[in-house]
């Protein structure tokens, strides 16, 4: 079952209106740990501690502040902040369409399923149109008093809405200050051959969270009072730059 309906609205562009409902598409499944006091395993609580008095401060004594400079704050009332939020709308406004391949996954934040609301009319047509044009709609909408930037895309036959990170939230590659390192066409060719040898179709169901299973097994073992053998992490020896071609060729022999 896809998740519950989070929000309802209309996809809108030109004179087109497609009514949809938003559903969560992902549910994370993780082993939960608690933080305990080492000595007696009492479960610890998180508390807000006053940096000055070093005492826990109850919620009614909290104030919200924006730090202007060190130790200087602008006080802000949460109600005012709420006011600053945009009015909730019902419109997913598509501003433009882009080739899907142009959206680097680095921008993708969270995806929701869209379900047709009231009528199928339009939904199937839009799904088909997006598929045939290979595009995604760049759109904005407002829910829960927050504005979102998103990409309207097709996944199979289902319309999906991914929230996108704003451009200034993505760290530019140039700030990584990567060094240039020349590679020869020969190396590129052999690496390219190697990669096609190692290529497969994307089958995510092949991959399970084995670690989670092993972790659960470890916990069970410990719970039974059995001894745990601690293994050292494996470190790989980096390939020396002058050995790169040689190693590529050896790899090629291995896979061919």
């Amino acid at each position, binding site marked *: *079952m896809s998740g519950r309906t989070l929000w309802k609205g209309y996809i809108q562009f030109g004179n087109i209106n497609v009514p949809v409902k938003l559903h*969560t*598409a*992902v*549910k*994370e*499944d993780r*082993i939960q740990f*608690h*933080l*305990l006091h*080492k*000595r007696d395993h009492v479960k610890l609580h998180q508390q807000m*501690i*006053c940096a000055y008095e070093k005492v826990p401060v109850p919620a009614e004594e*909290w*104030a*919200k*502040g*924006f*730090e*202007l400079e060190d*130790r200087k704050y*602008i*006080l802000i009332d949460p109600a005012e902040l709420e*006011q600053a939020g*945009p009015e909730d709308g019902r419109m997913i406004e598509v501003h*433009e*369409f*882009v080739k*899907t391949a*142009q959206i*680097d996954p680095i921008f*993708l934040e969270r995806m929701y*399923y869209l379900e047709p609301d009231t009528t199928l009319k339009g939904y199937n*047509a839009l799904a*088909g149109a997006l598929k*045939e044009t290979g595009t995604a709609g760049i759109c904005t909408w407002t829910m829960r008093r927050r*504005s979102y930037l998103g*990409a309207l*895309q097709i*996944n199979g036959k*289902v319309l999906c809405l991914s929230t996108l990170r*704003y451009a200034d939230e993505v760290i530019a590659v140039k700030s990584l200050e990567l060094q240039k390192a020349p590679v020869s066409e020969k190396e590129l060719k052999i690496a390219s051959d*190697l990669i096609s040898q190692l*290529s497969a179709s*994307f089958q995510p169901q092949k991959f*399970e969270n084995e670690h*989670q299973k*092993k972790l659960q097994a*470890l*916990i069970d073992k*410990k719970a039974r009072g059995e001894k745990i053998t601690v293994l050292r*992490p494996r*470190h*790989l*020896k*980096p*390939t020396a730059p002058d050995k790169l071609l040689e190693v*590529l060729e050896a790899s090629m022999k291995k896979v061919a």
Partner: protein
Amino acid sequence: MALQEIWNGTVSFSLVAIPVKLVRAVETGRVSFRMLHRKDYSPLARRMYCPKEEKLVPPDEIVRGYEITPDKYIVITEKELESVSPERSRTIEILEFIDIKDVAPVYYDHPYYLVPSKGGEKAYRLLVEVMRRTNKAGLAKFVLREREYLVAVKSTDGALSLITLHYSGEILPDEDLLSKVGTTRSREEKIESEEKSRMKKIIKEMTADFNPDKYADERRKKIMKLLEKKAKDKGTVEAPEIEEEVEEGVVDLVAVLEESMRKVKEHR
């Protein structure tokens, strides 16, 4: 700008091993606020607190526990966590390469960049370039902190990015949606087809290059404006200065001893 290293290890495919560091690729643009103590405007910090002893617990006295029955925990150490998948905690081993276009957006979770460590520049550059040309991404599994991630390593603007993927089990099925969509009664088929053509026409007119710079967070702008106004009208408040504490190795003796004892027992 030197980005803080989150992890370091090796990216490998076949026999090639590239030493790399993992760094952030995104930072939230949300306006962040500090919680203050209304009394003196000193900032509040989240700290772990022992409800039994009614005191703050320093980080070195905190352990991770898994609750097996209510209030009964199994303590798991960092070393044990690391040893669950020892072959994956320091190595991102690319198992296979896939076409990026085959990965549905729903799988993407959180992005990072990989940057080469000393000596790895050339092999890194090679992998970036080959994946750019072939539009492929490497699939790998690796363990960061206590979680194992399925990740896609790909070429992004001349760098390697690493994007964690959701496991297929974490993706909610869309079968009930599929049963609703895609099917059209024959008498509506024609209308739908016409509608589709109309949409395609509009889409073509509205198609442009992806340029995320065009969009800004409207809410962020409004909040910043509000803050400017508040600063002008009401001014700022000032928190008291905090004296640097000289905590010269103040530790709890019994805790130190018990911890030491635990380690002794582990090794015996």
